């Protein structure tokens, strides 16, 4: 089963060295070694069928309409020890609190700008900066209630933060469904491990949203706003709405009247207090932002400003996950909290800085270049795997608009054991835990482990041939 497994030079999740599994993987390793490949294949097929039959699919853009695919699921779980998780939890909590204080500050007094910690021109040139949010008081001062932060391991196995997703992070439904499927396919193995549960996520999310209700609304009505059936994450929207027992609404179901948001029901208009919106800032209110949007609610921003509705997340949070601002997050943490960051950043070159830019342009074949406002693995150059034409193209783009790009060293993402074509092979993985911030920060132990299923690939995004696996956080 493990005959074609190569440990390689990067950190291996399962093996400390050749033939020596890490202690937390020992039971899993022994179980896999004794299972016939055929049996494993059958379980993989059963798992795939579960996804397809339940319609757990995402839409691929740029293909024929209605191309629905399942997000490939890998049978073999990824294991995180209690000690590792404790560190991740502390680090993410610290980071989210600091980023939230940063958002509160830049949309009000702007102390961090006045103190010269972050250059004004860098902040105000963020694509996701929303002038309209200046001076708006948001419930509990919570801007980022739902966060997904991407972590990777460096060569020594230390977790570092690759990026924060502070706008409309997705994928949490896969974290939950992967666990359901896992418990069905490997019940005995699962029960031998003492794995911390994740299934209370829906309830935790609902509590978080409830905390954002306007005051004097003791029994708030909470809804999930989806762009509709054509959105790639529509399955997740229906899944979460059902988990929480709240209405799944579209923009056309809502209206604003006298700065209050209502939904149209067969029993008349019903007031809405909190909106978990899965619609981007640009589309959320045609009166305030893109006027051609039909996905949002005209007048939502004013209702929000008036304090009559809570939003998760707030508008304009994209400035804090801009990839150029990312380089400043360690400074943001020490500025607001007076602490050293627990989880380190990846070293980042700002292309607006002359020295950095010169270095980057000379080393394009070694670095990863990313567009600052993009996500989902789009707009990226991976130096070592690029062609000369691609590098020339990026050189041209960088020189034309240096503010729009950053560069990072090519990371040696850790590799985890995956079941591929009847064998166990190592593939690169990352980890996206989901952080909730309402009354306090809550992180459900686990996350989405994304896998670059193509041999040698470093891109884990579902839109680019990635898959996922269940992530086990162990109890002590």
């Amino acid at each position, binding site marked *: 089963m493990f005959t074609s497994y190569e440990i390689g030079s990067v950190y291996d999740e399962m093996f400390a060295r050749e033939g020596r599994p890490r202690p937390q993987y020992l039971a899993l390793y022994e179980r896999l070694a004794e299972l016939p490949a055929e049996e494993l294949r059958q379980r993989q097929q059963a798992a795939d069928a579960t996804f397809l039959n339940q319609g757990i699919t995402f839409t691929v853009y740029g293909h024929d309409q209605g191309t629905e695919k399942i997000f490939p699921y890998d049978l073999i779980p990824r294991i995180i020890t209690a000690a590792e998780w404790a560190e991740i939890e502390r680090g993410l909590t610290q980071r989210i609190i600091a980023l939230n204080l940063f958002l509160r500050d830049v949309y009000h007094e702007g102390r961090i700008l006045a103190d010269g910690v972050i250059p004004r021109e860098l902040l105000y040139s963020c694509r996701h900066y929303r002038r309209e949010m200046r001076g708006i008081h948001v419930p509990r001062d919570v801007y980022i209630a739902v966060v997904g932060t991407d972590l990777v391991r460096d060569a020594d196995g230390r977790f570092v933060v690759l990026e924060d997703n502070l706008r409309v992070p997705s994928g949490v439904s896969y974290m939950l469904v992967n666990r359901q499927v896992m418990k069905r396919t490997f019940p005995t193995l699962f029960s031998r491990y003492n794995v911390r549960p994740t299934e209370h996520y829906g309830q935790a999310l609902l509590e978080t949203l409830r905390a954002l209700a306007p005051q004097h609304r003791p029994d708030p009505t909470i809804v999930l706003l989806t762009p509709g059936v054509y959105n790639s994450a529509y399955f997740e929207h229906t899944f979460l*709405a059902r988990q929480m027992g709240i209405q799944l609404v579209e923009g056309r179901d809502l209206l604003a009247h006298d700065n209050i948001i209502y939904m149209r029901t*067969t029993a008349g208009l019903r007031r809405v207090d909190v909106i978990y919106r899965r619609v981007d800032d640009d589309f959320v209110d045609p009166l305030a932002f893109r006027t051609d949007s039909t996905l949002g609610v005209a007048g939502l921003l004013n209702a929000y400003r008036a304090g009559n509705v809570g939003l998760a997340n707030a508008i304009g949070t994209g400035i804090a996950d801009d990839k150029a601002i990312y380089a400043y997050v360690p400074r943001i943490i020490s500025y607001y909290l007076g602490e050293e960051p627990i989880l380190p950043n990846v070293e980042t070159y700002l292309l607006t800085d002359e020295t950095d830019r010169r270095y980057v342009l000379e080393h394009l074949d070694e670095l990863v270049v990313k567009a600052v406002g993009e996500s989902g693995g789009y707009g990226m150059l991976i130096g070592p795997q690029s062609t000369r034409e691609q590098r020339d193209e990026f050189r041209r783009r960088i020189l034309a608009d240096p503010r729009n790009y950053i560069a990072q060293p090519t990371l040696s993402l850790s590799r985890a054991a995956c079941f591929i074509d009847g064998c166990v092979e190592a593939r690169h993985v990352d980890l996206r835990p989901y952080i909730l911030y309402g009354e306090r920060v809550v992180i459900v132990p686990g996350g989405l482990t994304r896998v670059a299923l193509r041999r040698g690939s470093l891109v884990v995004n579902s839109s680019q041939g990635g898959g996922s696996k269940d992530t086990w956080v162990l109890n002590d």
Partner: protein
Amino acid sequence: MTKTPMLSRVADSLYWMARYLERAEHTARLLDVNLHSGLDQTPSAAARRWERLLVTLHSVPPDCGATPYAITQALTFDTANNDSIVASIAAARENARQVREQISSEMWEQINRLYLQVRRTSMHEMWSGEPHVFFRAIKEGAHLFQGITDATLSYDEGWWFIQIGRYLERALATATLLDGHFGAFDTGADDLAAGFDYLEWVSLLKSCTAFEAYCKVYTASIRPEHVVEFLLLNADFPRSVRFAADMIQDAAQAIGRASATRGTARVERLAGRLRAALDYGQVDEIMADMHAYLMSVRRMCLQVHDAIYHTYISYSVDTMLG
């Protein structure tokens, strides 16, 4: 815990899902009967029947001529033609897709299967094979969906919106069918007897899958006034207009109870009036001016539709805030 009321958009989608599916089934039945009985008719009689078919489906002859092939093609597979079976099923599926989390998975899978089945078939394949088999599959697919709906969905507000959509469509379609049929023959009661064409009346009954049920009540002796009485006023036959009116009223009352909003009285009153018009209709009086009667039935159906929209779906915001 109070139950959250249904979103107007969801009610709208369920209503149209049911209407479009009923429409597809109706068109399939009419085409099937027409293709079949054309076999026993003279070419000129058959041509008149096809013309009438287009009228009863509110459709126009295809550009390439009113041949049976062209009409069948246009009403079955032409995606650009809103009246075609494929367009109706696609519209029903699209409405179902919009509320996929509100209906049962089994319902979604069945309507999706039906859609894929129609999309897979080509006109050539159907025409050179047995059209009857194809149309029967459409009808059965629609019946299966209704059965699955009744077996898997809670009988709450949403289920009643499905019912009211289905039966309003059925009442309208049957009234139009009767009107088209009588418009073609009715030049006074005497001519009716003179122009009596057994085949025409049988195929009218078959267009409503009513032939067997009719025979059980009136035996196989086919008389126009009995056919009218059966298709309009029979209380027990599920495709009669009266039966549909009964269901519409039941649904209107159930929806009114579920939503308890202002203005439900209007929907219920209009539905009650429609029902009364059929409950207390007299076939001899009706046949004195068949067209006027059928038009008034159609008008009352459309009033119920409008009232549902005004009350539950596209109500003006001011009335609800006021």
